[in-house]
């Protein structure tokens, strides 16, 4: 028994150390579990979908009439937008602005949730064979969900932004405007985030939208994080306490999108800063 306990302890210690690196055992068990999880998920979603479609048939006629009216309105709006888009392109060409980088998106289905009640990770049916890599951002309907924490050839594990360990650089309002910068952290509850370090003298209102800044080195800038639901106003010396509701409906998501985005590598001097002197000594300089 002692040997088994010791073995488990060594595994734990090894896993705790390899937090932001590839975790081999976990990855291969995930790959094996995929052959069971995928069929069960597809079967259960097919059954749920069947019953949902029966229920939704009742309201289909009314909805159809509403949608027809909506189409009429939208077609007019599309025409207007097309004119605006054309104008936008013309003006951009005039100003010689460079097109912003766009990220390729890979849609994925959630095939498994955390097998323990203590954590809230999810497993998606896309892996390294389809280009998924560690730390790639996950979004749903334009809202940030989390990032990839383990990748097997066929599946990947994602960690949600609501986990209390996660943190990301964020800004209230659009990038490029003089707005409040801060750090968004998970609170450990499914629908709650908190934003820290926003100076108390900056005006922040309930209902403002929070975006990523891209400074954390994991998420690209401009992803929608959530909407401010409560502000406990600070003062000139005390920062605000800001509570955010995530834009993505984390508790109800079935399909997500993986942004095939890899953060730019940090400059070498940033990574080696604390040991810079030692490295120089080793090199004999």
């Amino acid at each position, binding site marked *: *028994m002692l040997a088994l306990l010791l073995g488990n302890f060594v*595994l*734990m210690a090894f896993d705790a150390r390899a937090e932001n690196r590839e975790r081999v055992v*976990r990855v291969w068990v995930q790959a094996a579990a995929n052959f069971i999880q995928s069929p069960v998920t597809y079967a259960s979603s097919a059954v749920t979908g069947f019953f949902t479609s029966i229920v939704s048939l009742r309201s289909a006629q009314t909805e159809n009439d509403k949608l027809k009216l909506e189409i009429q309105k939208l077609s007019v709006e599309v025409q207007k937008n097309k004119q605006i888009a054309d104008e936008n392109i013309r003006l951009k060409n005039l100003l010689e602005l460079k097109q912003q980088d766009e990220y390729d998106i890979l849609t994925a289905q959630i095939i498994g*949730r955390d097998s323990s009640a*203590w*954590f*809230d990770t999810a497993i998606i049916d896309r892996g390294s064979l389809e280009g998924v890599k560690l730390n790639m951002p996950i979004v749903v309907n334009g809202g940030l969900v989390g990032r990839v924490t383990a990748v097997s050839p066929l599946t990947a594990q994602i960690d949600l932004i609501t986990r209390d360990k996660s943190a990301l650089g964020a800004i209230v309002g659009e990038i490029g405007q003089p707005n409040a910068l801060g750090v968004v952290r998970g609170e450990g509850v499914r629908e709650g985030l908190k934003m820290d370090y926003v100076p108390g003298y900056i005006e922040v209102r309930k209902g403002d939208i929070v975006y990523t800044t891209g400074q954390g080195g994991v998420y690209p800038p401009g992803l929608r994080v959530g909407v401010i639901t409560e502000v406990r106003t600070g003062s000139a010396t005390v920062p605000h306490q800001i509570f955010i509701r995530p834009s993505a409906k984390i508790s109800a998501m079935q399909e997500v999108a993986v942004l095939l985005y890899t953060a730019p590598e940090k400059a070498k001097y940033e990574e080696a800063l604390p040991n810079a002197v030692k490295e120089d000594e080793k090199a004999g300089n």
Partner: protein
Amino acid sequence: MEQVKITVALVIAILLQWTLRNIAEPFAYLDLPLIIVVYAALQRNAIRAIIFGTIAGIAVDALSGGLLGANGFSKTLVAYAVSEIARRVYLDNLLLRIPIIAGACLLDDLVYYGMHRLLGQSIGAPLLETMAYTIIGTTIAGTFIYLFLDSFSSQSIKQKRREFFAPRRQTRRRNPIRLGRK
């Protein structure tokens, strides 16, 4: 036969633990592998129970956000504790097993949480709430699963149980008041 039954039950429990939460969120509060590990420990075969505990724990950890080995550690410890109790106390009665499942679940949760704290890992879920739900869910599910597993019990065990609970011959008690009369 008994060994095959428990092994099959453990494999099914692990597979269900991997998949059930995706169907409905409340299933997260059922610890099916723990139920089977405790059942194995109640058969008074400590070594088998401990090995089952480690395997089930690592299998659950592999698809969880927690530390790999934390569940293995806690379930191994639970298996040992339950098998030691089962060696000393007769626990084949279903009513006695209910507090054993609840106690095993409590110990498992405390050790799991403690190991994470020890290694500097934070756990997002609220401790008391998660523990309470897990204990309630696992104890209720465990009671039904034990009834189900017992119905597959091999004939020899049933026979042994009958012998253990052989109907006692009732002796007629004499009236102590009458005894004193002449």
